[in-house]
Structures are given as C-alpha cells and as structure tokens.
C-alpha cells in the first residue's frame, strides 16, 4: 500500500498539537496567555483625521481583560481599515461615519494597529499602538 499523505499529515498535526498542548500546560510562563474578560467596558472615541492618514489618539491604553468599545469616526470621503493582527481584528471603516469596533484586550503587551485598506499616499504610515497592561 502506498503511503497516504493525508494520513501522514494528520499524524503530524496530532503530534504537533499535542506537544503544543503539553508546552502550554506545563512549561509556558505564567504571565503569557489569555486574560479572562473582567466585564469592565472601556469606551474610546477615535477619529481618522481628514487627509492626514493619522489616528487620533495614536496610542490607546487599556487594562488586560477590558472590553474595548472603540468608536472610530472616519473624516475622509474614502475607506480606511482598522487592524490588529494578534487580536484577529480587521475592520473596514466607511467614510464620513462612525464605526464601532468591539474587542476584548485578551493579551498583555504592546500591539500595533494599522490601516488595512489601501487609501493613498499616507497609507503605509497610518499606524498606532494599543498598550494592554
């Protein structure tokens, strides 16, 4: 019988995931990992300044476990996007209106957020930081 690739891949996946599981259970430092939601809701108002490709504020600070209600107002007449890779967030921000992005600050650390929708000359500079304590 010829070797079945899917079987081999499945075997590999099982080995990999179980070793990952063991690492998390027994070896991973305490401070790393998901912080349970505390139920505290933090309301943050944010604006994208017209034709400046700039978040206002550029840095937001929350406590770990906070539920963040980020209300982003796009002053431009074209689209932007709000993305934080590590939290799995990638939202389109429509022009001239408010978009609510809600998420839980599940991990401690400093994460960058950026505009995920091509929006012209300042696009690649349109970044900011989320600091979770």
């Amino acid at each position, binding site marked *: 019988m010829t070797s079945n690739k*899917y079987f081999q891949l499945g075997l590999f996946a099982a080995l990999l*995931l179980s070793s990952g599981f063991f690492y998390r259970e027994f070896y991973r430092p305490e401070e790393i*990992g998901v912080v349970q939601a505390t139920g505290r809701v933090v309301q943050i108002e944010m604006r994208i300044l017209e034709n400046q490709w700039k978040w206002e504020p550029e840095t937001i600070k929350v406590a770990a476990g906070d539920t963040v209600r980020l209300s982003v107002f796009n002053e431009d007449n*074209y689209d932007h996007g709000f993305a934080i890779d590590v939290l*799995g967030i*990638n939202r389109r921000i429509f022009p001239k209106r408010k978009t609510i992005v809600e998420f839980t600050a*599940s*991990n401690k650390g400093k994460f*960058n957020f950026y505009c995920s929708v*091509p929006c012209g000359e300042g696009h690649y500079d349109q970044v900011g930081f989320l600091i979770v304590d």
Partner: protein
Amino acid sequence: MIEEKSKKITFHIEGMHCASCAVLINKILDKQKGIKASNANFGSEMLAVDFNPEIISIEKIKEIVANLGYNLISKEKSEEEIKKKREERIRGLKKRVIISFILASPIIAYYMSVHMLNLKHVHALIIGNYFLDLNWIYMLMTMPIQFWVGSIFYRSAWAAFRVGSTSMDTLVVLGTSTAFFYSLFGFLFSTTYGNLQTLWIGLDHPFWESSAALMSFLILGRYLEAVSRSKVSEAISSLLKLAPTKAIVLKDGQEIEINIGELKVGDIFLVKPGGQVPTDGLVIDGVSSIDEKIVTGESMPVGKKPGEEVIGSTINTYGLLKCKAKKVGEETLLFQIVRMVGEAQATKAPLQRVADYVSEKFVPGVIVLALISFNFWYFVYGIPLTPALLFMVATLIISCPCALGLATPIATMVGTAKGAYFGILIKGGKALEQAYKINTIAFDKTGTLTKGEPAVTDIIQNDNVKFKIDKNYILKLAAIAERGSEHPLAQAIVRKAKEEKMEIPEPKDFKAISGMGVRANYEGKEILVGNKMFLKSEGVEIAGIEDEFKTLQKEAKTVVFVVYEKKILGVLALADTLKEHAFSAIKALKERNKEIVMITGDNEHTAEAISKQLGIDKFYANILPQDKEKLIESLQKQGRVVAMVGDGINDAPALAKSDLGIAVGSGTDVAIETGEIILIKDDLRDVVTAIDLSRRTIHKIWQNFFWAFIYNIVAIPIAAGLHLVFTQSFGEPAGWVLNFAGMLNNIPEIGSLLGSIFVNFSQSALRPEIAGFAMAFSSISVVLNSLLLKHYKEPTII
C-alpha cells in the same frame, strides 16, 4: 481447479480531469473480484481491463466506474462519439470561462488596480442616507465562480484525496475555499450586520478577488489546453487521407463495388494495379508485386503469385490480382494492430506533469507551515483561538498563487504555436512537457529514415566487354527496355534516366517476364534487363562482373543486369535511399547525447547498410509490429525514456507505447493518429527542433512556476506571522529593525519614507493589500515570461 478465463477490453473514459482520476479508477477496479489488471491512463483517456467475464460483467465494470463519476465508452464504435463529447467538453469549458470572466473581471480589475497602485478604496455606495456595501455584490458574483466554475476542481481534489495524493487541484481547492469562506464569514458575521460578532470577532476584510481571480485564470488555463489539443486534432484530420472503404468483388462473373463492411470471408475480390488491398486474403490468380512497407516495413515490393497471402491496406503495384478473402473486419491484421495501439496507449507509463509535481511537494509543506503557525500563536504565544486560526487561514489563502493555473497552459500554448510555425504539430501540452526527458530515440527505417522507395544508386560497367561504353548508355538502354513496365524497380530506373535528362525512345516487342525482368527490342537489337534468374533462363553467362555483383548484394542492394545482344554491359544497383536530412538529424541528436536506435521489419543486410550510412550504433532487424512495441517496452524497462519516430501502420503500437510518439507527416493515418508529435514537413531535423523546443518550453514552465510561487512563498511566513519573532521584542520593534530603518533614512529624498514603511511592515503580519499585490504580480510575471518564448529560434542543423 478450473482454469481462469480472461478477457481484455479497452474503453474510452469520459470525464477524467486529472491524473488522480486515473489512479482512483485503477485503485477501485483492482479491488473488484474478477478483475486481474486495470489500467486507466489520463493522457490517452483510456482504460484497459483484464477481467474474468464469468465473475464480473462489462456492465458491472461500467457501473462501478460510473459511480466514481466517469463514463466508459466502448472503443470500437465510438470515434465520432468521443469527438462529439470532446467538443461538448470544450464548449462547456468555454461557457465557464466566459461566465467566470464576466463575473470576475470587475472584481479583478478593481482589486488589482487598487492594490498595485495603492488607490483610495471605496467599499460602499453611499448616496444620502442610502448605504450599500459593495461586498454584497462581490459576494453574489463570486459564489457561482467558486462553486459552479470551481466544481471541476472540487471533483479533482476529491479524487486526489481518495487516492491519498495532493495534486494541483488540492492546492487550488484549499486556497480558494479558505479565501471564500474567510470572506463570507468575515463579511456576514462582522459587527456591521447584527450581533454575529459573538461568533466571529470583527474581521470583515474579504478576499473575494483571490477566489474569483484564481478560479477564472485556472479555468482559462484548462480551456486553452483543451483548445490547443482540439486544434491539432483538426489539423490532423485534414492530414489524413481517406482509407479504402470499397472493395471490388467478383459475383457471378460480374465486378461489383461493395462497401468494405459487406465483404465476407470466402468472397473473391479483385485488386487492380495501383489499388489498395481491401482485406487479408489469398491470391488465387494473377501475378504482381505488392508494396507492403506500411504494414511490414519492408522497403522493396514483395512478389505475389497464386497461393500467397496478401495483407489488407497494402498497395498493389503493376499486376491484376484475384484473391479470396481470408479474414475480414476485426480479424484482419490491420485491425489487430489498431487494437494493439489502443492497448499500448492505455498501458503507457504516465509521466508526472510539472504542475502536479510542484503541488505534490508544495501542498503538504503549506499545511505543515499553517499548523506550525497555529501551534505557535495559540500554544506558545497564547493569543485567543480565533486570531490564532486566522493566522493559519491566512497562510492557506496566500499559499495558492493566482498564476498557478496559467503557468503550464500559457507556456505550452506559446510553445505549440511556435511548433506549428515550424511545421511541428504537437498534440496537447503534455507532449511538450515530456519531450525534453527523452534520452533514447528509436527510428523506424523505411519511410522514416529512408524514402521508402527504390532508387538507382550505382551503375557499374562490365570491364570484360570488348567495346568501351559510357555508363550513362547502360542506364539509357535499361530505361528504354523498362519504359513500359509498371514494376517499381523499372520505374526507378526510368526516373533516374529522366533525372539525367535522357531521351527514352519507345522499344519494340516489349515483354515483361514476371519475377524475372523485361525483354525489348531497340533499333533491331535485343535488350534484356533482369535478375540473375532471368540471365540463367536466357542462357547468359555472368562473366567478369561477379565480384561487383557480390559486393553490391552485401550492401543490401537489388541488382539488375543490363544485357545487350546477349552480352552483359553492366549492372544497375537499386536501393532504398536516405531522406535528405536524415544524416544531419541523427548527428545533431547524437551531439545532444541522445542514444539512437533503429528498428525495422526489413532484413539484417539492409538494416546494417542503412545504419552504417547514418552512423547508428544499434539496430534491430526483422522486427514484427507487435515486437516493435515490446522492444520499446524493454528499452523503457532499462530505465530509458524513449521517443519513437515512425510512419507506418507497423510503427503505430510502438508509437503508442513510447514515451513520445513522433509520426512523420507523410506517413499512414494510423501513425499520424497515434503520434503525439507530427512532423508535417517530413524533415527529420524537426525531431531535433521538437525536442529542443520542448526543452525550452519546460524551462519556461519551471520559470513560470518560480514567478507564480515566489511572491507567495515569501508571503507565506509573513502570513503565518512567524517573522514577528525576529522583528519584535515585547511589542516594540526589535533593535535591528530600527537600526536598519536608520540606515534607510540616510538615503536622500525617499529615505525617511522607506524607513517608516520598513518599520511598519515588519511589525504586522501579512497585510491584505500586500497579498493582493502578490496575486496580481505573479499573474503578470507568468504571462510576460511565457510570451518571451515567442522569440524562440529553431536550432541550425547542418
């Protein structure tokens, strides 16, 4: 114990779309009771089964295969049907291409221009209070592409899955499905529309263009391939001459023309001079010689007299023959050869195509990387499940390059078009993809290396004759005597005389003595032209020219004596001569390190003489048609990749069995039908060009795969977010990133911009706009790279 019964049958398989399909059919059939061997072949779309009819019926086999989603069509009666089905398939593909592009082109154009030019995006139509997210439209446009157009790929991937392999279609299905469902869920569940965000966090950046563009390009590739294949078959059918469909039978003393199908065993049929023998039979009256080279490969016509056998479809030369039909229809030698061709095609060893080779290695690699990325983010880095899954999904999406489906078809399309320009018809891209692997080339002799008709090669005068004469005079006398004869040797002599611009007056009292020679009277003197037997019966002594006679015979030449007034003036030697460019073609192939082998049905003498002239080291003589095929097989078993070049009916099974069948365009229908490459100009140098073109095309294909994959390969670890390990420390950019950005800053004008772009890029995983850029660029690179092949020039061979 009862002896097991066995029956062999070949079918045409309809509905195969990938190499895995053939593997699947074989796998399932081999498991059935009563089936000894099953051999499905994707290239020829044929299935050969060896089965016991007492245990399993043909209907049952058909049913099993039908359950897998394929149709079996009996081979014999179905030429028309197969052609119709193929046309239907092409029409179906065309429909898919058109609809796919109508739906996809706005999406492709929009996303490509936005991503490549960094334009300002508008995702929604907003007029006053009216708000429409354009993604609703994109979603509706993409759905039929993904599931209707893409159903072909889903089926192939499923077939590949069932046999445990990963083909190109697996990669396509994996990449586009993840892209599509990622977009669908992300879009529908995003917070903009209701409270579904509890199921799926705020992610609504759809990748419709990935699925739409990929599927459209893939289906275009499939279509181009099918069309280039059918175009060649059209060209071939125009090349084919009509096979004899009529026979003249003798009934109650009357000559009646009937259809070949009505001919029965025992019928008496007539073969007129120059006519084709309708079927296998026995000569009962008349004498002639028959040109059997298309079936047996023998270069000289074979004399026939009552009691001897004739073979269907061979060509009669000068005499009228009355024959009795011995075998008709499926029993004839010709039909058996055709059946052998079918079997050989079906059992041909498959060579893997580049696309499948690449995918087979690539797919498991991608899956492994995706798993590692998930493992790292979820267990090691400790982020929540959904974002960790998203890293994995992004890896899978970016893994399937947009240009994947175009890499092979575009290159082979340019390659086959270029081939056609040089007079080389290539049936489908597959032949082009494999020709470069050839390391051994087997040539048929008669009709391929040689012209297949006798020509005067030597004129030698008898030194014993008292009066000196000119060599040309010998030829002239012979031509005068032979003028009235229809015998091919006679015609060759007359032709030679005409080439020398001689006048050939008409002789008196011409008489042909069958199997011996001719006698004629010119200016009152007697001329005899004939063989040794003729001389004996006329009482002429062979004196003074015996040595020359023996030497010529050793060279496998046919010798005729020219006798004037009972004295031998000299001899003419006739032989099959080489084609114009045979020598230089063989030389060029040897220079390219190809081993040359000659296979012929002709005798050892002739074979040796020809192979010596051409510098061929290895030859096999006296080979019967079925043995030619076996010879090819034994060469293949030695690990060689063998091309067969031939023209005759007897070459057809070998052409089918070989890894690459090259048919000479002047050849027989069967050979042309069987060959994968057809040399229209009948110039053997084109064998070299075909192999060279194939090598160049395969290089292009590999380059295309490089261009198709490179952007994506670079993007994969970024999509998996694995670079962040190096570019970040505790959420801040790593030291070396800032240092490098500082260096970039020193570049005048654009320095600070480059620096900040580098920093920003290094701090995020694969940004969707970069993914879009990769997709667009890979397609453009592939198309442009393929078009470079248009500048291909054929090798110069002297």
